[in-house]
C-alpha cells in the first residue's frame, strides 16, 4: 500500500495543472479582494485580511479535495483501476489512498494563501495557531474528498469535471466563502450554516479568532462526512459490480 501511495504522490506532483486551481487562483482572488478591503475592519470578530485568508484557503482546499473525482473517473474509464483490482492491493486500500491524496491537496492552498496573508497583508498568529489551522483544514477536507470520490465512481470523465466545478462553486458561494454569511440575505444565510463548506471554513475562522471550533459546527461537518462517505462507498460498489 505504501508503494501505491508513493506512486500516486509522485504522479500528483507531476500534474502542474492542479496547482493553478488549488494555489494560484485562491492566492490571486485573495490578493485582489483583500487589497481593496485594507481598511474594512473586522468580520465576525476577525480582521478582514485573516477572515478572507481562511475563506480563500477553504475554497482552494475544496477544489483540491474534489479534484480526486476527476482522476478517479479517468482511471476508471481507462481501465487502470480495474488492472489494480487484479493485484494483491485491496479495493479498500486503493480508495483509502485516493481519499488521503485528495485531502492532502487541501494543504497547499492553506499554506500558500496563509503565506501571502502573513507576508503581504500583515496577518500574524502564533505558531500553534498556524499549525492548528493547517491540521484542521486538512482533516476538515475529508468530507469533500469523499464527495469527490462519490462523483468519480459515478460519472464518466467528461461529466466529472464540470459537475465537480459546479459543486465547488455552489458549496463555496452558498457556504459563505465568497460573501460572508453575515451580509447574506436571510434565506441564504439560513441555508449556509447547514452546509459543509461553511462549517469547514468555520474551523479556520475559529482558529484565527483564537477560539475552539463550535461543537455544533463540527457535528454538522462530521454528519456530512458520513453522508459523503456513504455515497462514495455506494458509488464504488456500484461501479465495481458494473465492470
Amino acid at each position, binding site marked *: 500500500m505504501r508503494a501505491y501511495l508513493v506512486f500516486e504522490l509522485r504522479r500528483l506532483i507531476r500534474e502542474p495543472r492542479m496547482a493553478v486551481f488549488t494555489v494560484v487562483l485562491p492566492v490571486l482572488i485573495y490578493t485582489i479582494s483583500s487589497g481593496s478591503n485594507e481598511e474594512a475592519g473586522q468580520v465576525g470578530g476577525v480582521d478582514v485580511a485573516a477572515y478572507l485568508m481562511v475563506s480563500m484557503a477553504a475554497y482552494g482546499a475544496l477544489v483540491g479535495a474534489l479534484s480526486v473525482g476527476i482522476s478517479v473517473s479517468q482511471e476508471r474509464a481507462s481501465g487502470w483501476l480495474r*488492472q489494480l483490482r*487484479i493485484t*494483491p492491493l485491496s479495493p479498500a486500500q486503493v480508495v483509502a489512498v485516493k481519499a488521503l491524496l485528495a485531502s492532502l491537496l487541501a494543504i497547499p492552498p492553506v499554506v500558500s494563501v496563509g503565506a501571502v496573508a502573513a507576508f503581504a497583508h500583515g496577518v500574524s498568529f502564533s505558531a500553534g495557531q498556524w499549525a492548528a489551522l493547517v491540521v484542521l483544514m486538512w482533516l476538515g477536507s475529508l468530507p469533500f474528498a469523499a464527495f469527490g470520490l462519490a462523483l468519480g465512481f459515478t460519472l464518466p470523465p467528461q461529466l466529472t469535471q464540470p459537475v465537480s466545478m459546479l459543486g465547488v462553486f455552489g458549496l463555496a458561494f452558498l457556504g459563505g466563502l465568497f460573501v460572508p454569511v453575515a451580509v447574506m440575505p436571510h434565506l441564504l444565510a439560513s441555508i449556509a450554516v447547514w452546509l459543509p463548506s461553511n462549517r469547514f471554513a468555520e474551523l479556520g475562522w475559529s482558529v484565527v479568532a483564537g477560539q475552539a471550533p463550535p461543537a455544533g459546527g463540527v457535528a454538522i461537518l462530521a454528519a456530512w462526512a458520513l453522508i459523503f462517505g456513504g455515497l462514495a462507498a455506494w458509488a464504488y460498489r456500484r461501479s465495481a459490480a458494473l465492470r
Partner: protein
Amino acid sequence: MTEAVRLQAVAKNYGPVRAVDGIDLSIARGQTVALLGPNGAGKSTTINMLLGLLEPTDGTVQVFGGSPAEAVRAGKVGAMLQESGFAANATVRELVELARALYRDPLPTAEILATADLAELAGRRLDKLSGGQTQRVRFAFALAGNPELLVLDEPTAALDVESRQAFWAAMRRYAATGRTVLFATHYLEEADDFADRVIVIARGRVVADGSGADIKQLTGGRTVSFDRAGADPDRLRGLPGVVEVELRGERALLRCDDSDRTVQALLSDGQPWRNLEITGAGLEEAFLSLTATAGKE
C-alpha cells in the same frame, strides 16, 4: 492440489443476453491453455469471472481451490486485460516497480524489462507509448509478481508480426518455469502453436476441447457448394469425404474433411450440379459448425 482453475456450470447474463451459457472446465497446474473463439463468444466474460472482476450469474469459479478474489489477494494471479489503460504521469519503470512492490515474491526488475522487451523504454512516460509498446507494458505488469497463474486476454491484439513472435517467445519461457498460463485468442494458429490444450468457446459454451492438432482437424475442412438442380441430399451425404450436408434453398453445402475425394466422386457420380464452389472453412465458419453440432446434442 493440482488444479489451477475450475469452473462448474458457470453462466453469466447481461440483462437478457446470456454471454456465458454453462461452462465446465478444469485446468491443471503447469498447463498452457488457449481459450479460442470468435469475438463475442464469451472469452473475456469468462476471464473476467476467473479474475473475480465479474460475479457469475450461476455456477462456481475456483482458482487454486479458493475464490478468485482470494487467489488475487494472495498474489497468485497476474493478468493482462484487453485495453486496460495505465495511469498517466508515470514511467514504465515506476509502473513495473509498483507491480513488484504489490507482490510478495516478484521477478527482478531487469528480468521483467528484458522479458517484455522494455529495457530501452524504462524511462518513458506511459502516456507516450505506442499501442504495441503499451501492450508490452501490460505484459510486464502481469508478469512482474511472478504469479502462478498468468491470464492473458487477447495478448497480441495490438502487436505487429515481429513483436508477436517476441511476445510468444517470452510467454513460452515463462510457461517453461512450470507456471500455468491461460490466454484468449481468436487465432487458431496462435492457439495451436503455443498451447498444450485448446478450449474452443462459441456462443458462451465450450464446443471443443483438445490438443491444437485435434482442433485443427475439426476446423480444417473445406466447404463444397453448388446449385443442387434436383440432386438427392441423401446421396450427397453418402459421397466420400463429406461430413455434413446443409441445404440452403437450391444451394447444397457439403462440409468436407477431404474435398478432393468429394469433388472427384461428385464428378463421376452423375448427380446434376451447377456453379460449383470450393471454399476453405474460415475459423468463424468452423466455430459456427462446431456450435451447431453442440446444439444438436
